């Protein structure tokens, strides 16, 4: 799998490159600004682009804008955006840029390299990787909601993992339960929240995020 990295801090760019190479990913380009990212994705056509939010010259949300521009340039390009902090506003904008192939994670998630690489693979395959903190804040915001309150604790956990973009298998592994138990939980969640059930992980994420107002 070929990856383009856009990260302006040398230490992090270098660390990411080495970590991903150690996990058998191929780094086709590692750049330090948005313009070079655009050039790299159009030239190399990578499987996924990993983009830091803060990039020169403005050091504000350059990375988000670069990611959105890259997806306009190369439709369907999977992009994983990394940031020191997460904002629901940015999560929304990224989700709105076309269905699937979107990730938005805190930089801390890099510490768990296995999980992180799993998220990259998920995004590259057209899935979603939404940071748990975004989901936690969405859930916290909706606590007063009537139908959400009817969910059991287990179901809420499944809902959160589902909203992050994880498959049933991944949820089962994470919660140390069987896949069939997960399927039972998801069916119950969709029933209680009055959502259209779907086997497609990606459509499922969109439905859940839309329900939570994300």
């Amino acid at each position, binding site marked *: 799998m070929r990856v383009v990295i856009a990260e302006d801090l040398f230490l992090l760019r270098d660390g990411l490159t080495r970590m991903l190479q150690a996990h058998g990913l191929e780094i086709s380009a590692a750049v330090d600004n948005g313009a070079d990212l655009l050039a790299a994705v159009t030239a190399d056509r990578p499987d996924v682009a990993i983009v830091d939010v803060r990039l020169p010259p403005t050091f504000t949300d350059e990375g988000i804008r670069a990611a959105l521009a890259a997806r306009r340039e190369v439709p369907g390009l999977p992009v994983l955006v990394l940031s020191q*902090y997460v904002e629901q506003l940015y999560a929304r904008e990224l989700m709105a840029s076309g269905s699937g192939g979107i990730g938005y994670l805190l930089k801390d998630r890099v510490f768990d390299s296995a999980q992180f690489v799993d998220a990259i693979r998920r995004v590259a395959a057209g899935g979603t990787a939404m940071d748990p903190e975004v989901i936690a804040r969405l859930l916290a915001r909706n606590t007063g909601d009537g139908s959400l309150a009817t969910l059991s604790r287990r179901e809420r956990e499944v809902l959160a993992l589902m909203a992050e973009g994880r498959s049933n298998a991944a949820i089962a592994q994470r919660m140390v339960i069987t896949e069939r138990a997960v399927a039972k939980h998801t069916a119950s969640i969709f029933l209680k929240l009055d959502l259209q059930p779907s086997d497609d992980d990606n459509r499922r994420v969109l439905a859940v995020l839309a329900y939570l107002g994300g």
Partner: protein
Amino acid sequence: MMAGQGPDRPDTGGYPQAPAPPRQAQPPQQPQQPSSPLADIWEWVRGRLVVAGHGVLLLGLALTGIALVGAVLGVLGLVALLAAKATNPYQTQELDLITAVAVFVFWLLMLPVFLLFFRPMARLTRRLAGRWCGVPIAAPYLPRPWADGGRGGLRRRLTWLLTDQATWRDLLWVTVNGLVGWILPVVPATVLVLGVVGVVAPYAQGDIRLLAVAALLGGTWASPWLMRGYGLLASSMLAPTQHAELTLRVHQLTETRSEALDTGAAEIRRIERDLHDGAQARLVAMGMTLDAAGQIIDTNPDAARALLYEARDASIKALAELRNLVRGIHPPILADRGLADAIRALALDSPMRIHLASDLRGRATAPIESAAYFAVSELLANVSKHAEARETWIDLRYTDGMLRIGVTDNGHGGADPVRGSGLRGIERRLAAFDGILAVSSPPGGPTAVTMEIPCELSLPKTSFS
């Protein structure tokens, strides 16, 4: 608080403020009832009658004032009379001299009391000029020098009173008003009475009757202008002079500057403490954990691995703490996107339903954006904590060099800017930018908070690609 301000006005440092334009009705208000021409005429007549009534009340005020001045002068005259009598070589009377001295001393002692008496009268005139004549007049008085702690002794009080130019201008106004000023406001009522008498009196002739009707119509028509003229006359003596304005301004700047510095210093202390107790402590612990892992890595690799994971988790916690700290100092999204989007992000995190309307085209300077953002953030926290509101409307607009932020909720109201330390804090922070905060929160709600900050907006940054 500055001296001499009505309780219903925000602290503007004694400056005349243009009345805030009516807020965009949000939540919507009742539409006005359609009116018939007859009702219109009645409204007009009623309005003029009210003006005439106001004029009579103003006359009363003026006469009370001049009576006071007369009393002061009268007592002085009595002193002179007694003194003249006492010094008359033909009929010297010790008693008269003693009386004269006693009355004079009494008069001297009472003078400050009289002067103090003029102040409420002048204040009342200022209020009425704004309300009845449409000429709002700001208070010109010097702030009490002992307002910042300690009580003023009699001497300090006297010095404060007598050295304030405004005291003497008040006296001038009361005199002028009592002698000639009252003529203006009394015209409407006089014309009304004389006109009506001239029309209905049985002995009135045709010409007189015509004149009376003309005077009645003309006087009634002109009455608002007469009141306005009176207001301007009052303003010429009661409004702050340029010198008073500058003095007040200097005082206000000194006050807000020291408050801004205090707030800044307190913030820095808080950040230092947070770093010391949070991220720094975690980094120290991490260093020790890593060291321990290094020591046992050969003898007990499993335990070493556990320690390494522990160190990793500590670093995640340290990062989370730093992230929260940064949010409290200057939220990244505020730096990235400006006020509107930062408030939008706040709204997304809030359990309330928040409707945001914004017409901001550019960006204010970073300190102003930050002050406005934290003000809104604190208001929203207040709303969700105290008001039990389901919905909140936030209104961001920029007109004529003024950033206006309205925060309205449908909670149960009863917020008190005097008692609520949160609102006071916001007010103080906005004051550093000459910003003001106005709160309307009747019991039962809704609560509407309006903030105004004079500032300039720069053009938005050029966007990527």
